[in-house]
């Protein structure tokens, strides 16, 4: 055992940058803050992408006496986290120009803290590390939601998210405590050797940990907070929640469940499949009548989470592959969708409702066509990125012999097609005037790039497939 500090270099870099951000914030005059901190964060995130690329090992490596373990699953999910955060920063830059806050510096460095938490979360190999990193991320996001002036909605969302999130965290930590009680260790490797039987404490711990994760992921029956929080939080923060928090939680789930609860795979796989199908339907049905697009996307997120969860019922290797691929697609789509909404948002929460998008094509053909790409990708229409994500989940399900579940999630996706088409209907087919605030070039560029990726990876999904396969084989080396 050794410290192997250099393995955690990317995380420490982000952390150091965030702390430096606190110091710089004290020195700068307010008017330059937005520009400076945005540039600073972009630089930090770009640099960490390179650090992650160069420090992620194919053969899993441990550091801090097994507190963290890195493999390519960690590496790729960190890149995805950094990419989503990068888009979040670009979008925030435009958003902060439109909406007033006294806490410009805080906004960016809290974002960096959240990124640090997420990055540590996907490399955690020990229960306490997992919990601490989860809380670093969550608390930063609570703070981020409440930073804007006169934004009563954001403050309400922050409080709601905080209270509900704490309950979720408490449930997880109780599960962890039980696990520690059973095995006397918090390390995944040690835990695994104790959990081979179906004893009651193990099942109880499993149930608590599953509930806690479902809570963080926003799956039925713990989804109640999602619509309010997604709707209320400032759009760039929603973007961050939708993409980064989800990636971190899912990857942490894979990294915890496969090594530790491997003998019980069948059991929790089926639990996730049932919950997944229910989530997919609940999300799809609840989204049908939403007029606010952020709320609609919150329900759509519940539905997508459900689809990903069903994939866990398959053979471990196939599950991990399809979950990771789905996360790639989902992160790109979420980032694009919320970035798009933020681009159209004006003071007084204008531009978030379907009726504000009437005849968007008349105002800006490019934006309207991007909208088609984003929402059709979310609906899973080929040849867009979202289709492949759905396709791989279906392959995973059919491989496991669960054709019924495959049909069920496709029926849910046919239902959700209706609400994904509504923005298209409003933007192209209805008469009226769209709200179109002055476009921020950086924000616009970020959205355009992600939209381009949705098409590119839709036509050439091989790159992402290969990445997911590499991540998978690297991850499997760690558990077998």
């Amino acid at each position: 055992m050794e410290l192997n500090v250099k393995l955690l270099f990317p995380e420490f870099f982000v952390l150091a940058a965030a702390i430096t951000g606190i110091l710089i914030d004290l020195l700068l005059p307010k008017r330059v803050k937005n520009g400076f901190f945005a540039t600073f964060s972009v630089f930090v995130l770009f640099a960490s992408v390179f650090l992650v690329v160069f420090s992620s090992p194919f053969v899993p490596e441990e550091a801090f006496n097994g507190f963290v373990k890195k493999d390519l699953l960690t590496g790729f999910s960190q890149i995805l986290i950094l990419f989503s955060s990068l888009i979040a920063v670009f979008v925030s830059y435009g958003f902060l120009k439109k909406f007033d806050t006294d806490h410009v510096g805080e906004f960016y460095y809290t974002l960096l803290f959240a990124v640090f938490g997420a990055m540590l979360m996907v490399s955690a190999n020990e229960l306490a590390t997992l919990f601490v990193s989860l809380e670093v991320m969550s608390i930063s996001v609570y703070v981020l939601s409440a930073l804007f002036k006169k934004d009563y909605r954001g403050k309400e969302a922050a409080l709601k998210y905080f209270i509900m999130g704490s309950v979720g965290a408490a449930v997880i930590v109780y599960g962890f405590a039980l696990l520690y009680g059973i095995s006397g260790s918090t390390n995944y490797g040690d835990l695994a050797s104790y959990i081979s039987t179906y004893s009651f404490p193990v099942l109880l711990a499993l149930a608590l940990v599953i509930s806690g994760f479902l809570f963080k992921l926003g799956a039925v029956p713990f989804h109640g907070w999602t619509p309010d929080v997604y709707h209320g939080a400032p759009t760039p923060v929603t973007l961050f929640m939708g993409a980064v928090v989800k990636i971190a939680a899912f990857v942490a789930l894979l990294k915890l469940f496969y090594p530790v609860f491997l003998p019980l795979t069948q059991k929790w796989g089926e639990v996730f499949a049932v919950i997944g199908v229910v989530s997919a339907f609940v999300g799809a049905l609840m989204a049908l009548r939403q007029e606010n697009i952020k709320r609609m996307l919150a329900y759509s997120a519940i539905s997508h989470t459900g689809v990903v969860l069903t994939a866990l019922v398959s053979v471990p290797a196939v599950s991990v592959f399809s979950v990771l691929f789905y996360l790639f697609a989902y992160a790109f789509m979420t980032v694009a969708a919320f970035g798009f909404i933020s681009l159209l948002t004006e003071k007084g929460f204008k531009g978030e409702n379907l009726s504000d998008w009437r005849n968007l094509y008349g105002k800006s053909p490019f934006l309207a066509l991007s909208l088609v790409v984003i929402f059709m990708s979310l609906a899973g229409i080929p040849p867009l990125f979202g289709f492949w994500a759905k396709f791989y989940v279906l392959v995973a399900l059919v491989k496991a012999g669960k054709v019924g579940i495959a049909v069920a999630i496709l029926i849910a996706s046919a239902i959700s097609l209706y609400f994904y088409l509504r923005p298209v209907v409003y933007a192209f087919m209805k008469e009226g005037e769209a709200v179109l605030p002055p476009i921020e070039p950086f924000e616009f560029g970020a959205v355009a790039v992600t939209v381009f990726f949705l098409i590119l990876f839709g036509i050439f999904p091989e790159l992402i497939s290969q990445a997911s396969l590499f991540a998978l084989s690297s991850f499997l080396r760690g558990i077998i």
Partner: protein
Amino acid sequence: MVSVILLLPLLGALLVAFCRSEERVKWIALFTTGLTFLLSLYILFNYDISKGGFQFIDYGSWLPSFSIRYKVGVDGLSLIMLIMTTLISFIAVPSAWKYIDRKKKLFYGLLLLLETAMIGVFVSLDLLLFYIFWEAMLIPMSLIIGVWGGERRIYSALKFFIYTFAGSIFLLVGMIVLVIVYGSVTGNFTFDLLQLSQFKLPLELQKWLFWAFFIAFAVKVPIFPFHTWLPDAHVEAPTPGSVILAGVLLKMGTYGFLRFSLPFFPDAYKLYAPVVFVLGVVAIIYTALVALVQEDVKKIVAYSSVSHMGFVMIGLFSLNVQGIEGAIFQMLNHGLVSAALFFIVGAIYERLHTRSVERMGGLASFAPKLATLAMLFTMASVGLPGTSSFIGEFLTILGGYRAAHWVGYLMALGVIFGAAYMLYMYRNVFFLEPKVLSFKDLDAREFLALGFLALLVIWWGFNPEFILKFVHGYTASLLGGV
């Protein structure tokens, strides 16, 4: 070569997107679709009939990690569908010339994207590639209906999109099941059409998969009782949209039956043929009766499509040479005739701004050219000898008769009803007392487009062998396996 045809409209769409002038896009679209049509003719004349099978195959690795390949090529069936698609797309541009008066760039861009997707459906030799084109086509088509359509356009566009998508769900799952079963038996995971069609599935699985594929294709054809999206979509769509819907889209379903259902599940196909006969006969007679009482010209033509596709379906499931060749011929022929009829209905609507039969009448005295061509296509739709429809209907009825006598009798009854509603419509629109004060005859653009279709309808009516010679080999090899 096939790839060039496939990508050319896409390139045209990009050109349209970057074109600055709203007027010039028409010409780009006309030129692109024309060139695509010419290239497909080149393939038609260079296809080696004596060799048969798939030719002009292009392939490359696309998704090697899942052994999904980009593979396109044409055999006799695909070739005929390809010619039909490029021809109808080429005709759709002049039909849109004046009708589409706003957002022209968007329209022609979508039209060209749609053409690529439609061509892709007919030339894909990989299951997943086929599925991608099959679904991708929905976005441009429903936008065309929804943006330029009539009063209830949004409802119709959504209905079309969701209905077809819901049908395709089972196709996707069915495909994955097929591929995984094939992979577990042979140890070879592939989506390649040719390899999969060599594979003999157990009957129990065939039955399930047959229905999974059936629903997707049946919605697209559409077969009674899945046809309810069609009148809405056809009536509300703008003229070029209806032309493409009737001309090409409906054939995707029947093409699917021939290309996938029959080779993959021959036993289930044979087993369930009687079910399709019943549905087909109901479609022929029921929708003909429905068409008889419609007031809206476009609705009459729309229901006639459902009725005619019933003939195609019965031909396909009759499982004899006459039936299948007749069905293929009828697919092509219905493509031409219904496209022409929608073109004519659109031309009348542009001038009168109504589609109600009651408010027309006596148009023949104002517009002799239109009336003559309309007469020709009405007769073609009825199945008059000398037009290509006669060949198609005759062969499918013969096929149906050979499969089961009662089917043949009832199909023939359907022909009579068909004559009734078409002639009734023609009389009310073009003869009787004139109810309009003035009416402009066809202009050169419309005349050329319709005249071209008319020539083909008559030429193929007298010389069906020109088309059928491409499918003899295909049908023989198909039926050899049953």
